[in-house]
């Protein structure tokens, strides 16, 4: 009889241990969910999740060209954006800025999904050069990788007949 009792308590103990382990596991899973949803408005506004400093971003997004012709530069930027299938949203000669949107689809994963790529390109004279800066958002995420900007400036170089210099 005592033996049975002992076995019963042993089982109960094991059961409790299992419960505790299960609780730990579910806590872990829940915390993953909570962590994933733990971005605040402030972190979204300042894009802190990209982990890029302003200096880093500028070196990725800006290039200098050896020209002083503001109007021609802006027109070339617009023509390049059009070549890349963008539709222009806005342009301002005084500020030297252009915004454009590309609506297209790409094969990502299993489906052919449509996307919206929005880009703002601005140009400003610095000494004998013009500094062109671009920034883009892909659907609802900021584009901070260097590659897309390298591609853009390669396209722009061809249209400008000038070399893009890294901005110091």
């Amino acid at each position, binding site marked *: 009889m005592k033996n049975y009792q002992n076995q019963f308590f042993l089982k109960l103990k094991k059961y409790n241990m299992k419960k505790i382990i*299960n609780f730990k*596991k*579910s806590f*872990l*899973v829940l915390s*993953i*969910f909570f962590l*994933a949803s733990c971005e605040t408005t402030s972190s979204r506004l300042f894009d802190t999740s990209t982990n890029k400093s302003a200096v880093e971003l500028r070196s990725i997004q800006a290039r200098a060209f050896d020209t002083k012709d503001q*109007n021609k530069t*802006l*027109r070339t930027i*617009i*023509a390049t954006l*059009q*070549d*890349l*299938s*963008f*539709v*222009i*949203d*806005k*342009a*301002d*000669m*005084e500020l030297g800025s*252009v915004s*454009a*949107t*590309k*609506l*297209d*689809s*790409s*094969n*990502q994963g299993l489906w052919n*999904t*449509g*996307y*919206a*790529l929005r880009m703002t390109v601005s140009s400003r004279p610095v000494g004998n050069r013009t500094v062109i800066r671009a920034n*883009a958002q*892909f*659907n609802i*995420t900021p*584009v901070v*990788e260097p*590659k*897309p*900007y390298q*591609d*853009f400036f*390669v*396209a722009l170089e*061809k249209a400008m007949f000038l070399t893009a210099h890294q901005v110091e």
Partner: protein
Amino acid sequence: MSNLFRKPIIFLSIFSLLLTSCIETIPPEALVFSKDTLANRQLQTRKFDTKSEKELLTAASGVLQDLGFNLDESAPGVGVLVGSKNRDATDSGQVVAAVALAVLFGANMPIDKEQKIRASLITRPSEAGKGHLLRVTFQRIVWNTQGVVSKIEPINEPLIYQEFFEKLSKSVFLEAQKI
């Protein structure tokens, strides 16, 4: 392996990890010239022997208005005109398919309902000296009956551009004759 997935907690945590890592990124071909770049440029560009850029822009804005576009943005200093319009997007083929599905299976298939068509019209002086070049590009966003975006695409049908430029040629002529 199958034993692993029998435990819902492990399965869930793997699934949630997959979900968080499933953020879409910019496709590699997005900012690169494609094989269609040149063909599209030719399709979308025409040269007009107008004396001033302003004359061409005025004629072009007239055509946009003829087609029912509202002007969103204009920057004549760099030859930019942007217009858009909201229109019906119902496709009779889709309606037939939706009705058939509803009758056969009782399924409620969403169909295209509304669309926003955008046009940007850019002029620039011709490098050859005389005249101006005009490039127009169209794109559209379509919403279905559930209010969800169903299509998001550039419009590249050659016939649309040909028709647009025919209208523009007439408008440029009328503008030149001050009619």
